[in-house]
């Protein structure tokens, strides 16, 4: 009797330890050997960015100009410049707010900004080259959303190229008998409408429909219609790369935020977006994807540098 209880307690202890072991094993990041050069490059990037923001923050005119636009839209222009061209366009629009003299200094500021940006581009390229393979292994958050070729529920062809057409894409995984998934569909539709203005979109993936079962597709469409969700819902083969990716999701709904380059931003959100606190996290991810300095996206934390 006594021996039995000791065995039992030992067994529980071993099981508990096994779990803790796997926990620590997973969380402890591997010791990375960072070459000095990479740190130097990063420090320089940091310095250049400070310089750039410094110009904008120190002058009263720029503050006045930026007030005109709440949304710092982040378009990467043909010349690779983000701020330069944006500010240029903005200045063009609100020229009449400034005196000739002010305009002159602003033009010269713009010149400097463009120069800094050009330097930043080179530095970023250097930094990318210095990133070893271990950065990618350690870095599940900066994965790309797996590519796919599929159809939407109306039968139109879609591919993962769709991410490139949006500045941000919210990918929501759900299924037809999941009640929290269905409860958030109208909220996702609202989000889709909001994002449209910013060049983003929501897409849904109902995992019941993945292999094109007609009754499942009809059921999914019925639910979407009933909840007034009109955004695109897509499907692909469950044997495809994206299908396997979907097959590994263990909780529904799960929502991914994908940036304009098809990269997953931050951790996927598990649970409906209408749960307390979820919308804030989602908004944070969206802001990251839309982030003005997306070029300098921190690959290690999946967060913005700035």
């Amino acid at each position, binding site marked *: 009797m006594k021996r039995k209880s000791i065995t039992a307690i030992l067994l529980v202890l071993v099981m508990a330890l096994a779990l803790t072991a*796997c926990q620590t094993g*997973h969380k402890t990041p591997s010791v990375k050997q960072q070459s000095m050069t990479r740190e130097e490059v990063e420090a320089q990037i940091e310095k250049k960015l400070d310089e750039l923001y410094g110009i904008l923050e120190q002058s009263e005119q720029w503050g006045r100009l930026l007030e005109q636009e709440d949304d710092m839209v982040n378009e990467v222009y043909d010349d690779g410049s983000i701020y330069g061209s944006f500010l240029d366009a903005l200045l063009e629009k609100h020229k009449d707010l400034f005196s000739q003299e002010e305009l002159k200094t602003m033009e010269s500021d713009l010149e400097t900004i463009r120069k800094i940006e050009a330097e930043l581009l080179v530095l970023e390229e250097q930094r990318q080259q210095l990133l070893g393979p271990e950065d990618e292994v350690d870095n599940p958050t900066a994965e790309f959303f797996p590519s796919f070729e599929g159809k939407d529920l109306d039968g139109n062809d879609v591919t993962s190229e769709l991410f490139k057409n949006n500045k941000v894409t919210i990918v929501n995984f759900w299924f037809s*008998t999941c*009640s929290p998934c269905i409860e958030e569909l109208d909220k996702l539709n609202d989000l889709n409408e909001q994002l449209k203005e910013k060049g983003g979109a929501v897409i849904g993936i109902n995992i019941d429909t993945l292999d094109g079962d007609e009754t499942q597709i009809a059921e999914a469409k019925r639910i979407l219609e*009933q909840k007034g969700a009109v955004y695109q819902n897509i499907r692909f083969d469950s044997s495809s790369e994206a299908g396997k990716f979907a097959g590994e999701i*263990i*909780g529904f709904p799960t929502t991914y935020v994908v940036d304009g380059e098809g990269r997953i931003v931050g951790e996927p*959100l*598990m649970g409906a977006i209408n749960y307390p606190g*979820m919308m804030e996290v989602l908004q944070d991810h969206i802001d990251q994807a839309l982030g003005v300095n997306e070029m300098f996206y921190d690959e290690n934390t999946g967060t913005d540098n700035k």
Partner: protein
Amino acid sequence: MDSKKNIISVFLARFRGWIQAAAFSLTNIHLPNFFKGQIYRGTGKTVCVPGLNCYSCPGAAGACPIGAFQAAVGSSKFRFSYYITGILILLGVLLGRFICGFLCPFGWFQELLHKIPTPKLSTKRLKPLRYLKYAVLLVMVVLLPVLITNDLGMGNPFFCKYLCPQGVLEGAIPLSLVNSSIRASLGSLFHWKLAVLIAVAVLSVLFYRPFCKWLCPLGAFYALFNKVSLLQMQVDKNRCVSCGKCARICKMDVDVTKTPNHTECIRCGMCVKACPVKAVSFRYGFGAGPADTEDKNPITNEMNGGLSQ
């Protein structure tokens, strides 16, 4: 000489801990998933395991019958889950609360905690709390998932969502340790159920199987089948010396000589082990209630193999 039945009874009673460990391992056979933070989702999950074992346990080989029942009645596709209810009735008729005593992982968990050496408290005075579990079964498992639905006629698994400590123990805790997005999604519901789990764990140290006695809807369902189950307790009145040891040792507060098939009896066999004259045994098969038969017709009993003097 002991009859074959007695030998089996004593064997079962003596090695119950090992059978519980084996049942736990078989129920949660997919061990590598604990490290991957994944759950198994193969065809095994279309079948229920007999005990209370969370579907979302990384290792789980099958679905939890209570979880599956709520998922089915709560879905807009099905009005009633005939499949799950059928399995539950079958298990109830075949084994009854033997499942609680021998096969249920959460029952085993509570028993292991109870082995922690502290002063133990009796539940004899808390008998009215036993009826709570029928309320849990009726309200949280059957009624609320059916009645409280959204605009598409879908309900929530209320028991799993708001009460079940096994879900936290086997699902939320191991998954959130390894899977960061699950960890990020833990909110007030998790904290509430973690509190339930801690309360159940603390009570388990002091009382014997508090969750089984007072709250478990699965135990409540099997309890209803204890009287008609093929597996029953049998007291050989010709051997019994009325010493009362069986009633005193019983941690489920049952007097096996008076009510061998009490709804609270989890067939743990402590009375089998305790009986100085080996009058108590398990009995399996069809036939009238053994106590009645023995009183009125000892010959039939002898033919059943109950006596061999």
